[in-house]
């Protein structure tokens, strides 16, 4: 159940459709308005949850995932990496919910992290509406616009010590010298490579964290490749994905049934 619908062009995950993120309706009218109605996948998801009138603490994932996929296709967002990543996440949760629970005491609801993220996102939206309100108030007042051309005043003495300069040198040079594996070339998903990376990491360590697999500054295509790779490996039973508590790092471990994990 973790496969994507065949018509979803995963290979273009880094591509953002033209018009996406535009601020005002252009010639294409309602379409653009619809697109910009959402500031990201969490926003779209929250709106779905509202429209479907479902309990945020008990999201019917199968239904919501299906709706989400349909909406991003209708909105032409199905090539935007951020939305695709959320789609993959929903499908992963759906798959996890289908797994047998085993002894229920240890069971962690796979939706927990998503709920946490939605609540956190919602809290941020509260702050945004508040800030928007204040910005609108301020926008309705003009500041003084005319400022006479003064001859450039002599500059105030500069407060800068040598140690401040040297610390700055230290900071920037460390940033330069530390290895930078940043890959700036946009490219389609590379799931086989991600699987290779995860396999070799798991050969080294019995347990991995999500952040071992995906660096904090990974490009969306890297995140997505790793995610799909993980899902595939979980599906064929090579590893086990779990989260100790909501919002914690995802833990990846060799499948308990895999004899290799006994040695670790």
């Amino acid at each position: 159940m973790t496969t994507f619908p065949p018509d979803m062009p995963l290979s273009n995950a880094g591509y953002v459709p033209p018009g996406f993120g535009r601020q005002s309706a252009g010639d294409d009218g309602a379409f653009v308005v619809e697109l910009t109605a959402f500031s990201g996948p969490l926003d779209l998801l929250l709106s779905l949850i509202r429209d479907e009138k479902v309990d945020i603490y008990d999201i019917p994932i199968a239904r919501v995932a299906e709706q989400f996929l349909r909406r991003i296709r209708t909105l032409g967002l199905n090539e935007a990496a951020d939305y695709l990543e959320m789609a993959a996440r929903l499908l992963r949760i759906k798959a996890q919910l289908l797994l047998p629970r085993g002894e229920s005491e240890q069971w962690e609801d796979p939706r927990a992290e998503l709920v946490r993220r939605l609540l956190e996102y919602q809290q941020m939206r509260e702050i945004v509406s508040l800030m928007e309100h204040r910005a609108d108030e301020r926008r309705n007042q003009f500041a003084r616009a005319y400022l006479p051309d003064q001859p450039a005043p002599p500059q105030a003495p500069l407060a800068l010590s040598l140690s401040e300069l040297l610390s700055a040198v230290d900071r920037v040079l460390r940033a330069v010298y530390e290895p930078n594996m940043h890959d700036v070339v946009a490219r389609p998903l590379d799931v086989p490579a991600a699987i290779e990376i995860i396999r070799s990491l798991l050969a080294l360590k019995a347990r991995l964290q999500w952040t071992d697999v995906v660096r904090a500054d990974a490009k969306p295509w890297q995140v997505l490749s790793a995610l799909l790779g993980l899902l595939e490996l979980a599906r064929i039973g090579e590893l086990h994905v779990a989260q100790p508590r909501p919002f914690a790092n995802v833990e990846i471990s060799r499948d308990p049934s895999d004899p290799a994990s006994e040695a670790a």
Partner: protein
Amino acid sequence: MTPLAKLLEAALFASARPVSVEELSALEPEASSGELTAALDEVRLHYDTEGHGVELVEIGGGWQILTRAEYTEAIERAQLAARPQRLSAAALETLALIAYRQPIGRAEVEEIRGVNVGSVLKSLHERGLIDVVGRAEGLGRPLLYGTTPLFLEHFALRHLEELPRADELAIALRHHADARVDGIALTAEGDGASDGIQPG
């Protein structure tokens, strides 16, 4: 008005940005801080009671004279000044996170917003609403961002502490009736609060 109040008024008229109390006190080094506050009060009261088209407000870590909101439309219609463009939802969300979690790196913003924020950070930086305030430890020593005084100005805040604390949010929101969050349980309580965003 008293001579000190007149001097303050002149200085406030000469600036497009809020003027800090330090800068105002440099105008008249002899004046005590009590005298300064009294003179500011005098200007503010004069504007409020003598029927002026402008008012004195405390904002962005200083004081600023602004036109009264009721004249905005007429001024804009006469094309004598134009209101700035509103920030996009993406920009507002990013700013909200930076305001509450500063210093914060790009990765954390992206984690919470669920989208890439590279270009948003760039344009917020160009607009002077955020600045690089340091570097995180760790690989590549990623840049950390914080808000600027211009941010306070843009949102008519005197200081960052004026933003509601996370546990006050639901209450604060009720003051500004907003339809966006209806139908969904609010987040001020439950396990969300302890890790929730706090003003920085």
